């Protein structure tokens, strides 16, 4: 009887397996077909295939780079410059989109009619205008509105804003590594402190003001290095230089190019609308009974938000917000329209054009975006799991 059952099960399993194997085989065949097709067509047209070009000299320059780069470096290095610029604008965008999104989302639930309505209008306007138009708007509006270099908007003689960018002082450090070590050390201390505080709370019900001690540590320790560690900081302030009769430029300091500013602005303002809706959905998704129950056992308003509402709201907020982070990262590829040197402009644009290696370069670029998105996804899934209900 038992044996018979087992046999039946196996054959059932096999029955399920066969179509799956066939599908996979079919997909593999399709991929092989397209590869061979592309190869033979490229062969017919005298186009070679290979990644050797990556080590050739790129011989074009890039406006803005986080690492040392000029045209004498390789295409691989140009790729890295583009990738870092993409990551930079995405990170800035995600940071501000989150802050703005959470603020707007909470504002939409405000009791204050004016605040709630303005937040609603903000969301409705900015999520319904195509992103590319918003990017153009911020870029060309900013360029038109900002003064020429010689009439820059002056912030206390240390920072200057004009049509060529925002010039800020550059930090010049001595013994910078000691300063960094002190910050790392502070973080390690905070980690142990929170472990200790949790232990105390679990065992004795004692509340330790972790937040205040942490703030003290993270400011105090680096500050100490200035006093006794030999760390010092000075500023290199941008200076106005005349190039010709009417052409001026700021030299020294750090220049934040208008392309970066307007792209980050457009991306975060656009994505913030979606995050705001997620936040609103999350907070509304926590049932009223939870708050009332928490209040009835004597938690304060802050504690209710921190310990009861937010943990449950976050579970609703995180998955769709992950999507928005991914969208923002992918949308940053619109940078090419306003000359922000991201990976699409630098690598899938200039490098593609100079080498003519469309298939190689587009594959690399697609793989890069895929890995970027997957990394964000992995991180957010980890965070989501951490926040999910742990059933005991």
């Amino acid at each position: 009887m038992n044996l018979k059952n087992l046999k039946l099960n196996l054959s059932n399993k096999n029955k399920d397996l066969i179509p799956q194997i066939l599908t996979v085989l079919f997909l593999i065949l399709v991929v092989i077909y397209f590869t061979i097709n592309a190869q033979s067509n490229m062969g017919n047209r005298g186009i070679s295939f290979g990644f050797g070009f990556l080590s050739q000299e790129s011989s074009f320059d890039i406006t803005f780079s986080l690492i040392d780069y000029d045209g004498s470096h390789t295409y691989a290095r140009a790729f890295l410059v583009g990738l870092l610029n993409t990551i930079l604008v995405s990170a800035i965008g995600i940071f501000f989109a989150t802050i703005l999104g959470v603020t707007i989302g909470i504002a939409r639930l405000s009791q204050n009619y004016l605040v709630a309505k303005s937040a609603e209008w903000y969301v409705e306007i900015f999520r319904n205008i195509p992103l590319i138009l918003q990017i153009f708007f911020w870029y060309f509006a900013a360029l038109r509105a900002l003064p020429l270099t010689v009439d820059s908007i002056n912030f206390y003689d240390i920072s200057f804003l004009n049509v060529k960018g925002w010039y800020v002082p550059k930090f010049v450090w001595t013994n910078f590594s000691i300063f960094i070590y002190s910050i790392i050390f502070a973080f390690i201390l905070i980690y142990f402190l929170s472990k200790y505080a949790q232990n105390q709370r679990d065992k004795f019900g004692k509340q330790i003001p972790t937040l205040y001690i942490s703030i003290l540590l993270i400011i105090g320790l680096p500050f100490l290095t200035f006093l006794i560690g030999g760390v010092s900081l000075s500023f290199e302030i941008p200076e106005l230089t005349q190039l010709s009769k009417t052409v001026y430029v700021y030299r020294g300091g750090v220049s934040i190019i208008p392309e970066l500013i307007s792209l980050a602005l457009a991306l975060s303002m656009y994505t913030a609308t979606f995050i705001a809706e997620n936040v609103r959905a999350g907070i509304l998704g926590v049932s009223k009974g939870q708050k009332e129950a928490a209040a009835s056992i004597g938690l304060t308003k802050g504690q209710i938000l921190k310990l009861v509402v937010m943990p449950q709201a976050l579970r609703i907020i995180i998955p769709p917000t992950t999507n928005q982070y991914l969208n923002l990262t992918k949308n940053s590829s619109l940078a090419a329209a306003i000359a922000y040197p991201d990976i699409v402009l630098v690598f899938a644009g200039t490098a593609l054009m100079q080498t003519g290696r469309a298939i190689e370069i587009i594959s690399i670029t697609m793989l890069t975006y895929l890995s970027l998105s997957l990394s964000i996804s992995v991180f957010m899934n980890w965070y989501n799991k951490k926040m999910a209900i742990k059933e005991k």
Partner: protein
Amino acid sequence: MIKSIKTWILVGFASLLLVACGQGGGGAGSKKSKTLDNTKKAGFVKCGVSQGLPGFSNADEAGNWTGIDVDVCRAVAAAVLGDADKVKYTPLSAKERFTALTSGEIDVLARNTTWTLSRDADIGLTFVGVNFYDGQGFMVRKASGINSVNDFRDGISACTNTGTTTELNMRDFFNSKNIKYEPIAFEKADEVVQAYDAGRCDTYTTDKSGLAAQRTKLSNPDEHKVLPETISKEPLGPVVRQGDSVWEDIVRWSLNTMIEAEEYGVNSSNASSLKDSDNPAIKRLVGAEGELGAAFGLDNDWSLRIIEQVGNYGESYKKHIADTGILPNRGPNELWTKGGILYVPPAR
């Protein structure tokens, strides 16, 4: 007996087949062009042009394309299909243009494209000639006090198009002068113009013909000027796919016909009346002597149609470049007989 008849019939069929195959194969060897066949079948020439560069390829409100690059495609259509209007235009960005050609989306690329070694040799393309000799220059504001490239100083910002040879020339130039510069490269020419107009950059660099054409799009064209120096050689010309030598020849000689017609004074209005000219070169141009078209599978009036329907090079230049005020002076684009460098091999 019956058996042997059967055998004979079989042998006869087989040899017939062989002969037929042989003829087909022979034809393929000498004068078969897949692109030409496809073009005749489709009834139009698939031509890749720019996204709008006055004088070279620019569409009006009604969607009619004009320009000297457009005229190359019109000449090919006149030669192959008998009607210069049978062209399908595909506007392409600098980035898309070569892929569109190698993938077969277009058959002729006439899009102010610079002929360089790497493009010719490496990516499956063949340049068939030069229809405009250009060079890269700089545009600045008149008020800037910059009168020559020697007035550029460290920190100058330069706007240009991405995906073109200008980006490379710009680097070579500033490096040779040892000037640190800020390169700002946009994907489309319209954005370059807007950014330069807004003051984002101090100078705008691209081919001089392009500068002259784009200057008209600035808010105050008179406040800007093109510096006298030319920093590169930019021979612009039509491109075809590698591997179809008949098609390549048709495009090359369509362009050459226009230039040679100007050299011999043949134009759209007098072409047909020159059939009984004394000059054999002119007679060959208007199809009254020789069998030149047969060399690439066309009839003998192919060149006459080009001249009648499109005009000679001089007419095309005057109509699109000179009369529109882009570059009234022909400079190097004058015939070799008049001090320029336009020189084409003889059509004979």
